[in-house]
Each structure stands twice: as C-alpha cells, then as structure tokens.
C-alpha cells in the first residue's frame, strides 16, 4: 500500500513539475512564473541557498535558484556564460567578474560578514595568557585577537611549545598560525592578507609597490607555514567543527553564527574577533536579467533578509534583525563589533600581487 501511495505521489509530483515547467515556459515573458537561475557562489553561502525555507521564499518571488560553489577568485576561470549570476564573497573578486554582465545594472551587496578566527577554547586561553588575545564571556567563548601581537609572534616563527601554559596539550605543538584558505583562490584567504598587511604597513592600506615589498615577508610566512590550503571557506570550517586540523581557523562570522542559530552544540569553541579585521561584503554579480532579479530580491525582500540572518549574515544597512536574532548567543558573538576596526581592502591588483608573492 505504501508503495502504491509512493508511486501516486511520484506521478503527481512529476506532473506538477512538468506543469510548472510548461507554465514557466508559457509565461516567461510575463514574468509571473518561476524562472530557473543558475549561479556560482562562495561555498559559505551554499547552506543558505539550499535551505528549504529560502527555496520557498525565492519561489514566492518567482525564482528557482541552482547553485554551485567555487573559490571567489577561482570564479574568474569558470565559463560564466553558463550562469545567470556569480556571487563571490566580496567586492574585489566581483569587480573582476563584471565584464560578464550582459544587462544593465551593477552588482548588489545584500549582506556582509566580518572575518573571525574560531579557536578551541583551550588554545584561546593560552593565547590570552601570552598576551595575544583577550577573552570574554563566562566560559571564555568570545574574545579579541590582538593582531599586532599575533603578527609579531608569526614574524618570529613562534611555536606553541614556546608559549606559557601549553603543558598537557599535546595537540598544541608546531608553529603558531591561523589556517586560512588559498588567497589566490578564495576571498577569505585574500582578506586575511588585506587585514595583516594593513597592520604591518603601519595601519595604512597597501597601495603601491613599496607597500607590497614592505609586507611581503610577513605575508609569505603567514601562508607558507600552512602548506596546501583549501580553495573555499566551507572546508576548513567543517574540518574545525569535526575536530580535524589546526586549532585556529579564519572563517566568516556568518559560518559560526549560522551554526549557533541552528542550535547546534558548537563544542569547545571560542570566537576571536581580530582587533583589525575586514568585512566581506558578499557581492552578487548579475550576468542575466534573472540574476539581477535574484539580487534585487535578496536586497529588498523582508523574508529573504530574515532568512539571511538565520544563516548568520548581517544584512546591509542598519541591522537590528541581526542583533535581535543573535541575542541568545552574545556569549560567542560580538554583536556590535565593539573594539573591532575595519581595515580597508587594497585594490584587486594589489591584493592579487600580494597573494602571488605570498603563495609563490
């Protein structure tokens, strides 16, 4: 009986889909039926687009969205004419993709998220004890990473074994470093270099060859110590939450917030906000009219903005929604970004040159 019901269901669903496809075709010009738009996105946004509620909210706006993930800078190498939009994780890679746009209208920045460092609490406590971080929250679940002190430690190839209080933590050995993604492939890795170079360049954005030369030794250290890096930010975060890999990992605040908002036990987690960081303003580059419609919907639709918050993003503009939604997790999140300074991002050319020299 169950089986027969299943078949009936399948037939009905197939009919429904076929009807939708036909309806879509018939009325595409009128703009009232669902249009399927394909896009390539930064991996941290995959769970957002695959959330059934997001799918439903987009359908209500007449959109069916299909996504694939790639590193924001790797999107340059993809055949974008197969897609309706690209959705890298910040403005610089988006600029490089703009020539694919076939329609009027520029890129859209519906939401943003600052870069943070997730740490095992025991590791964060050792950083604090050695003056590299300050901690808050009853259980030391949030804090600030002192970039200046951290970069000085990195410059000197400081190892965990050299820090006070490391006894009894056999997993804490080897050079102290933050894991990031490949700065040539991925936005978060490149923004890590942007923040570090700003501090190393005397709190000035690097804008010329002299600045690139001045900071390249340090940036090279930050990258080379990591060995092979992943090309997209979802991977390192998944590794971290499953207990694999380095105890310090650079991720978007959104990835952590999304985990907390889903009421998942985060395990032994401290969220460190670098005192100088960079926010990634996720930037949708429309290629076709359908892509532009999606960008508009994400920017303006109240339901979609609410769902973006559920996935940990801070909607553009004033964002009381974010503060309200994350109130229960203020032990982990620095909701108002108190004491966090935003470093400006170098131009795409400079960033690229810095990444090349750091990786090469």
């Amino acid at each position: 009986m169950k089986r027969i019901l299943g078949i009936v269901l399948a037939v009905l669903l197939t009919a429904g889909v076929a009807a939708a496809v036909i309806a879509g075709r018939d009325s595409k010009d009128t703009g009232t039926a669902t249009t399927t738009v394909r896009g390539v996105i930064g991996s941290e946004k995959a769970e957002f687009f695959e959330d059934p509620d997001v799918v439903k909210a987009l359908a209500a706006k007449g959109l069916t969205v299909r996504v694939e993930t790639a590193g924001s800078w790797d999107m340059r190498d993809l055949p974008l004419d197969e897609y309706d939009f690209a959705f890298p994780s910040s403005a610089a890679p988006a600029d490089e993709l703009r020539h694919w746009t076939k329609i009027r209208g520029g890129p859209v920045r519906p939401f943003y998220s600052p870069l943070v460092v997730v740490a095992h609490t025991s590791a964060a406590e050792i950083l604090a004890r050695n003056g590299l971080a300050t901690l808050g929250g009853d259980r030391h679940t949030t804090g600030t990473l002192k970039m200046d002190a951290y970069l000085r430690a990195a410059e000197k190839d400081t190892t965990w074994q050299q820090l006070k209080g490391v006894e009894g933590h056999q997993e804490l050995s080897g050079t102290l470093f933050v894991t990031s993604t490949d700065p040539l492939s991925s936005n978060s890795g490149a923004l890590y270099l942007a923040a570090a170079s700003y501090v190393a360049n005397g709190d000035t954005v690097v804008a010329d060859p002299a600045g690139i030369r001045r900071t390249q030794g340090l940036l090279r250290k930050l990258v080379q110590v990591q060995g092979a890096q992943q090309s997209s930010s979802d991977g390192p975060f998944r590794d971290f939450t499953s207990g694999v890999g380095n105890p310090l990992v650079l991720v978007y605040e959104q990835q952590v917030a999304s985990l907390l908002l889903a009421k998942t036990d985060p395990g032994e987690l401290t969220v460190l906000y670098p005192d100088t960081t960079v926010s990634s303003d996720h930037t949708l580059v429309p290629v076709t009219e359908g892509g532009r419609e999606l960008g508009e919907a994400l920017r303006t639709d109240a339901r979609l903005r609410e769902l973006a918050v559920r996935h940990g993003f801070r909607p553009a503009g004033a964002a009381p929604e974010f503060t309200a939604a994350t109130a229960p997790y203020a032990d982990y999140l620095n909701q108002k970004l108190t004491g966090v300074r935003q470093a400006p991002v170098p131009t795409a050319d400079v960033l690229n040159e810095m990444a090349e020299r750091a990786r090469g």
Partner: protein
Amino acid sequence: MRLRLIAVLLACAALGACTGGGDEEDRAVTGGTVRILASSELADMEPVLAAAREATGITVEATYSGTLDAVETVAEGKADGRYDAVWLASGGQLRLRPDVARKVVSQTPVMASPVAFGVSAEAAARLGWTDPEHTSWAQIQRAVADGKLTYGMTDPLRSNSGYSALIAVASALSHAQSALTDADVQRATPGLTEFFAGQSLTSGSSGWLADAYLHQGTAEALINYESVLLTLNRDRHTDFTVIRPSDGVVTADYPLAALTSAPPDVRDRVRALTRYLLGEDAQRLITERTLRRPVTASVDPAEPLPPGKRRELPYPGSRSVSDALLASYEHKLRRPARTVYVLDTSGSMKGDRLRDLKAALTELTGGGRRFRDREEVTLMPFGSAVKSTRTHTVRPGAPDAALEAIRADVDALAAEGDTAIFSSLEAAYGYLAEAADDTPYLTTIVLMTDGENTAGSSAEGFRGFYEALPRERRATPVFPIVFGDSDRSQLAGIAELTGGRLFDATEGPLDAAFEEIRGYQ
C-alpha cells in the same frame, strides 16, 4: 507555479500528511545517475549510497581508483565525459595542481579519518605501548629501526594513506614545525631510511593491503585509515591497537566535487547528493557503518572513535617538495623491489599480443614511473618451458645501463611453443630461493599469459609445490594478468593461493595493468 502547488497539495491530500519543506524542490532536481571516480576505500560506502538512492532517487555508479591515480586521470582530461564527479580521500593532491583545481566545483568535505598505525595486541604489549593516546611516530620509528616490528603500508605514489604516512613520519622525524620543506626532508632522510626498512608489505590500494596482511601473516602492524583499522577489528576480528600518533596525524576529509565537464543538471545532482550526505541521518549512518568521523557538528562520532585531539600535519604547499619526497621514497628510502616477470611467449602470442606485451614492458623502462633505483628485475619468458632467466639491477646514479638491457631483452622476445604456466611459476619460486640473500627485498612475481595451461605441471601439482615451500618463500605473491584467451578462474586460483591479486587486461590496455601492478611491487 500555481499548477505545481496544486499538484503538491493533491499529493499531500492523497497521503493524508505531507512532510513539507523543500521536498518538492529536491524531487525536481534529483533522480538519475551520477558517475563518480572514487578513492578505493570508499567501496565501504555502499550502504550509505543505497540509503542516498532511497532518499533522493540518485544512483551512484562508482569507479574505484588509487587517489593519486585519480588525480592524474582528472589532470590529463581523461575524466571529462566519463565521470561527473570525483570523490577522493583528500583534496591535498588536487590543491598541488592548479590545472586540476580548475576542473572541479562544489568541493565539499563529507567525512574524516586520520591515517593511523594499527599494531597487533601482542606486539603492542611486547613494545609496552599500552596507551595509544600517548604513543608517537618517534617511538614507532625507534621500534622499527631496532628491528622489533615490521608493517604494511600502501604505495605513496598511488595511494593517499601511504602518502599521508610519508608526510607524517617525515614531519615527525625532521621536527618540522610547519609545512614540510626540502630541508626538512633532507634532515629526516636517515630516520626515514630506517623506518622504511621495516615496511615488509606494500600495495597499490588500502583495501588489498588489509587482505595481504591477513594472508601473509608476517607483518605485525598496518598503516591505514583509522576507519579501515577499526573496521578490520570489528568485521575480521583483528586485534589492532589503533594509534593516532601523538606527534601529529594527516587526516583524509573526503571532499566530493563535481567535474566542470559534466552538464549542469548532473552537477545539480552532485550537489543534491552532497546535501544528503551532510544531513544528520547520513552522517550518523556513515560514522556507524564505516567508523569515519562525521563533519556535521550535530552528529557525534561512533562509539569506538576516541575523542582526543591531535596536531594536524599540513600537506606540503608546493609540488616540488612533494615530488622530491616521493622520488626519494621511490629510489632511496623504501626497500628495493625484487621483481620476477613470468611471461607467456607461446605461439599464440604471435602478432599484436606480443607487440602489446613488448610495449607495456618497455614503458616501465623510462619516464616518471620507471623501474626504481636498486630494483632487481628478472624476465622469465616461457613457452613449453622457461626459455631464459635474465636479471638486471637498476644502479642508483646510473640507471640507464640496466634499463637499456631490459629493453633489449624485451625486444628479443619471440612467440613460440606451448603454454607451461605452472611449471614456469615453480621455476620462478625456484629462482627466488637461489637468489635469496640478506637484502630485504620486497619480492613479487607477475604472471602474464594469454591462454590455458597446456604443458608441464597441473594446477593441482602447483598447489602441492607451493604448500610445501618454506613460509618465507610462500610470502611471495603472484599477480596474474588476465589477457587474450587466458582462463580467468585458473588465474584467480593462483592469486588466491599465493595471496596476490588478479589484474584484468581484457577490458583495458595491457600496459595499464602492468603499470597498476607497480603499486604492489
């Protein structure tokens, strides 16, 4: 849109209940087949993939391969059009190849397992390793260097578990504080040479390594994924103490990625499959059935997986370091190979078959995967009996002399006579008994034949001969190649008896079979 909603509502009404959510959307993309090129140990995912088919309608057609061979396949463009996705033990190898990185999208880690050291309970007790949480690569290396332990490990040129172990041991012995450099590799070389002298078993894949370990019974330890070792304990009653060395591990995180060459709707299927695999039900099934670690934070690892943290040792960041380490393993660090080729050159091999055989062997005398420095290669062509026995040793620093001599011998092969398979195998074992000396060779026999046995000893006669051999001679496996009109079941019997593995050259080219066997030599 409205029409579809009505249909869904009807379906809900028919069932009397509706699970709601995005089911209708999933149904729209799913169903159909995804062809995946996968690391060989993923064969244990069958029950999870069956559940995935049940839940999503997507059928996975998997082709299994060594991880590094798979990377090569993708790099050369041979995966385009043949596969829709790759599912490898680790993305580390892909990351070393920017040309490959461009061929994949939606790369997402699905589960994790560190490469570990499994040691028999008896040996662990003897060595005093009572606390696996606090045993290091440095201690393991010392025990092996002192001759107290031998172990099996896969070929790091082909398989990710062997490659990961090579990185881990090199990092530990050089006291590298971050990603390996050429200087670290140099510093580790003396210790690595001692360590690899204890490797008594090699394999092109981690699955066969476990079979060979059980068959051969001479090694007391196995380097493999934590999941493979714990599964052996559970399913095949081994008693491994599983050590995740305290000075660091390399962990496989099994990223599933779509190939950009696949059509968009098929890539959507890959994403739908990934989404399913990351769900709580699938993650729970994965950790319970395969004893890998889940990557979805809300799912706990299965019971036998200990929680203690480990330092993660990074993959080398540059291809030159990686290539130098592998070349060093191949030509300097590992035990040398003693390889006997028992080659059917009976009358039936005349023409194309003999030409293919010559080409396949000649390919092993040049290029990146040639016969290794220090390797001893013996050619035993046979017809009605063994026709000749010619041995060449590849000298480090001057490999060309031996390689040229092998090429000349291969070129001189001529097809003539009947097919005396079993007598010739007996002759090969006889030759190895005479040649035995103190060098700790990894010894193997390759049997290539295109027909049935028509002369000399019978299968039964050979079985009696083999079983009467002393234990250390029986440890040499035969790798038969099915080719032309050879009798598959007869050759499978030889592989089973001697602890070897059957290779098939009736579907693919002969040179690919010879090349694949290199991983076992």
